[in-house]
């Protein structure tokens, strides 16, 4: 029973990471109807920036917050400079741009930092925490905590601030948004910045577990994609729930059913399964087009 509980909790911890990245994907998807394949690599690259800062002697949390800010600016710049010119281009061209970004950031990280794995520190204590008679890894508890704080802040931002409202409006009805004076282009850039910042947090939380290397987000992006699809690719709440669900399922299946080697295949099966059986996911809107 203890082992089972630990598996569930470990699943929730990685699930939080998937949830964050899935949410970043959904944010861009809602505004553009495109999946940003470079989301994972952006997160990886931001984590390297954090590593550089910590390596240079900056205290962990200072480096953490500075990285979030840098990732935000990076996201905004990428939207303004690279994505904006292809705004009206056909879907395939934009997808190629995204894949190009993926490759660029991956190679850039490899070129600057080499492909050998690095240890990334955790801000949480090494000793396990025991709650009742159970022992949990402090990093796992901390990562879940950080994820929940990030999700809570985002929810409050979108729900209760005028800027959050303007961003939601711009994503769903750009024409009407312009007519009330919202600068739609900037809202998109802001969305990219936020998504990139969320990704940075996810990267820094997962790096102590999977170790830092240029390919560390490849698998995570797949799980996040599965999570976004399970939840419904246009539903932020669904993406978050999907993230936790995929994390727990993946861990339990890995531990008790299919073994660790096939865990990633599970994500792919889930993606194909959702697309075949229920393309709109658990909470997504079913799109009906009149013909």
């Amino acid at each position, binding site marked *: 029973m203890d082992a089972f509980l630990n598996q569930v909790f470990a699943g929730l911890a990685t699930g939080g990471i998937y949830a964050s990245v899935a949410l970043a994907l959904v944010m861009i998807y809602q505004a553009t109807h495109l999946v940003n394949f470079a989301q994972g690599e952006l997160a990886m690259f931001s984590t390297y920036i954090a590593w550089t800062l910590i390596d240079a002697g900056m205290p962990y949390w200072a480096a953490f917050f500075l990285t979030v800010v840098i990732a935000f600016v990076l996201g905004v710049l990428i939207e303004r400079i690279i994505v904006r010119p292809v705004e009206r281009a056909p879907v395939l061209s934009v997808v190629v741009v995204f894949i190009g970004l993926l490759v660029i950031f991956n190679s850039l990280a490899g070129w600057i930092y080499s492909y050998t794995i690095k240890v990334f520190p955790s801000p949480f204590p090494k000793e396990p925490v025991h709650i009742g008679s159970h022992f949990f890894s402090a990093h796992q508890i901390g990562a879940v905590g950080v994820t929940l704080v990030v999700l809570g802040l985002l929810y409050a931002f979108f729900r209760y601030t005028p800027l959050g409202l303007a961003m939601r*409006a711009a994503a769903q009805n750009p024409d009407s948004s312009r007519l009330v004076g919202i600068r739609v282009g900037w809202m998109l850039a802001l969305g990219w910045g936020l998504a990139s910042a969320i990704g940075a947090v996810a990267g820094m939380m997962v790096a102590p577990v999977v170790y830092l290397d240029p390919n560390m987000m490849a698998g995570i992006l797949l799980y996040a994609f599965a999570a976004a699809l399970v939840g419904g690719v246009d539903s932020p709440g669904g993406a978050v729930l999907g993230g936790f669900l995929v994390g727990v399922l993946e861990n339990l299946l890995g531990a008790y059913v299919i073994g660790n080697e096939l865990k990633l295949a599970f994500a792919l099966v889930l993606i194909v399964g959702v697309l075949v059986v229920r393309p709109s996911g658990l909470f997504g809107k079913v799109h009906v087009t009149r013909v």
Partner: protein
Amino acid sequence: MAALLEVSNLHAAYGPTRVLHGIDFSLEEGSITALLGANGAGKTTTLRALCAMVQTSGEISFGGARIEAKATEDIVRLGIAHVPDGRGTFVNLSTEENLRLGAYVRKDKRAVEQDFERIYAYFPRLKERRHQQAGTLSGGEQQMLAVSRALMLRPRLLLLDEPSFGLAPLIVREIFDIMRAINQSEKVSILLVEQNAAMALDLADHAYLIETGRVVLSGSADEIKQNDAVRRSYLGY
């Protein structure tokens, strides 16, 4: 009285398709001016051109300053509110959020909060439905919402695109009465585009008749009503 809005030699096109061929009209401060015409005459395009939502050439001045080179978002900031064709509802947001967006560019936050009550006094139905998702409102309620969203700007000029479209006559009457009240009590100038010429002429002070992208007739609403051609083609008696 000085003209609040002056349009001269306005051309507009959607890609290669030219829709307006040099339109001239003006609107006096405080007046209600109607643009009449059949389907496809260019009425909606004229409104869209005023807000820089289509490619245009020609001159547009508002309050004495030229605005034809400005972006849509900046034209709003001058106090021009546009109730677009198809109502432009933010369907996934609540009624209240839709209204809040109407006041997006305003800085006087306290007055905005009071304006909610002012709007709800005009349209009590919207107050009942304020937490409801706007896409689930009826057509009439969405039209009320579109007009209210525009009023939340506290505009100097209100552009109304076919407010009667697809609505029951009673609701149209209600909306038109409120437009008249808003024009009189709050001194909001209104540029109204309508296919329902009879109702528009009852409300308006001045009117322009547009046919295939050109102004073919203009005058006070009463003069236009008396015009034989207009009576036969647009009023039906």
